[in-house]
């Protein structure tokens, strides 16, 4: 029962906003001590696991390529593409952005869009302008902006796991491997596809419903 203290350490440490790396080490020490392991044995066990799981951190070898492409305007091209989305309504515009975000995240391009890169400069103002056209003076501008940010999150969360070399896929591979189960990343990432489709359908339907609410509110 005492080993549960390790989970309490994580929850408390994250809540109190300590550096998460420090919280993880503290949780490992507390859990190990509670299980009757000595401090040196815990550090050695953690060190061995860290060494065995190095491939999780391999994903950052892509950064020099992405960085040089950004220097030559990759993000600007992505913004151009989004700017060209011609959704006549707020809902359709955000559905198109959702699709864009899911597909690019599934291809490993999670950093070309985001709250700072695209939502604030582009998607939120475009959504707000569309809502204003649909229901002039009779819509909540906060709502359009919040939906734009939510669409960005839903798109990246439920797109990125289809890419085989993202942190979460390799984390799963690592935790499974500790239990003696060896899986190729592709076996994990294909199982992100059904939920990605469901996320598109559910969130997309909500966006189109928001459209109907906008026009109905105007008639009423």
């Amino acid at each position, binding site marked *: 029962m005492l*080993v549960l203290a390790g*989970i309490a350490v994580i929850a408390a440490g*994250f809540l109190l906003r300590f550096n*998460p*790396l*420090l919280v*993880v*080490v503290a949780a490992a020490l507390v*859990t190990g001590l509670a*299980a009757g392991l000595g401090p040196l044995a815990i550090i*050695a*066990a*953690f*060190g061995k*696991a*860290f060494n*065995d*799981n*190095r491939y999780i951190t*391999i994903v*950052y*070898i892509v*950064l*020099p390529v*992405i*960085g*040089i*492409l950004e*220097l*030559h*305007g990759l993000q600007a*091209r992505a913004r*151009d593409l989004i700017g060209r989305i011609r959704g006549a309504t707020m809902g359709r515009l955000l559905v198109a952005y959702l699709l864009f975000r899911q597909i690019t995240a599934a291809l490993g391009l999670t*950093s070309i869009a985001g*709250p*700072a890169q695209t*939502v604030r400069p582009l998607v939120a103002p475009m959504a707000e302008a569309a809502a204003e056209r649909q229901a002039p003076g009779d819509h909540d501008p*906060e709502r359009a902006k*919040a939906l734009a*940010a939510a669409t*960005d*999150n*839903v798109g990246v969360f439920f797109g990125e*796991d289809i890419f*085989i*070399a993202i942190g*979460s896929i390799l*984390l*799963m591979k*690592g*935790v*499974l491997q500790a*239990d003696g*189960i*060896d899986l190729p990343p592709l*076996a994990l990432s294909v*199982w992100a596809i059904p939920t990605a489709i*469901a*996320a598109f359908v559910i*969130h997309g339907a909500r966006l189109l419903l928001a459209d109907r609410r906008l026009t109905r509110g105007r008639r009423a």
Partner: protein
Amino acid sequence: MIGLGFLYLVAGTTFAAFALVSLFDRPRGPGNAVFYALIAISFLLGDRLGDLGNGVLVLAIVGVATLGRMGPRDVEQALAAPRGSLLFVPALIIPATALAGTLVFSRFPGMVDPKQATLVSLALGVILALAVCFAWLRPAPVEPFRQGTRLMDHIGWAAILPQMLASLGAVFALAGMGTVVGGVIGGIIPSGSVFGAVAIYCLGMAAFTIVMGNAFAAFPVMLTAIGLPLLVHTYHGAPARVAAIGMLAGFCGTLVTPMAANFNLVPAALLELKDRYGVIRAQIPTAIPLLIFNIVLLYLVMP
């Protein structure tokens, strides 16, 4: 045979380059340079350090990350010779090579370690894309690594959080955490009910994620508590399905928790919303049906 050794050489060299760029390019406090150098040492020499040596290395990395005043040091930079939409091509070479390589290498074993075919292909894709960038954009040899360091500085210590959490999972396993949590939560699962076990596993992933603010942290706990002992070993579910769908159930939790500040509170602030929970409110009606979908999906793909 090309395998982990090649991968760790590529990754170690990349991090060594990040360290050198941090040291010489913008010498303003050594925190970042030391952090990248320690990761490079882990990649290049980890197998020779021994378990305790690696443990000390981890403590040093955490020490630098906590005390080392790491941070991004962005300099305003003009775009160098902007190019058209062709810029997406080198970026797409990476996933295309990773996917093609995985399929090809599994058909022709012997050259590449089949267990690492995907990651080896990813590394080959990166090298190929980098070669295309050099041939086409003609940057100075150090420029891609300078740009890579700029992006890496933004990620900062969070870069090794997944690796740290996987290692914590190993310590949890050693301490028998799975058995204990499984015993506590297992009591509320009606015995013999596959649906009950699937539902508690997915709801537990979401709940732990809401509390910890991070699905990565919740994953080792729930997988070792319910996922592996109950869903995989008792009910013979496929590990890949249990793991992947469980993680996505956790992501549904991320959508509704203010603990995941970078996803939920930072955008609200960026958009100057009056309601700092406005983004979370806009996400709840998507998160709940999607969590239910994940529960049903995992139940349906259980044998």
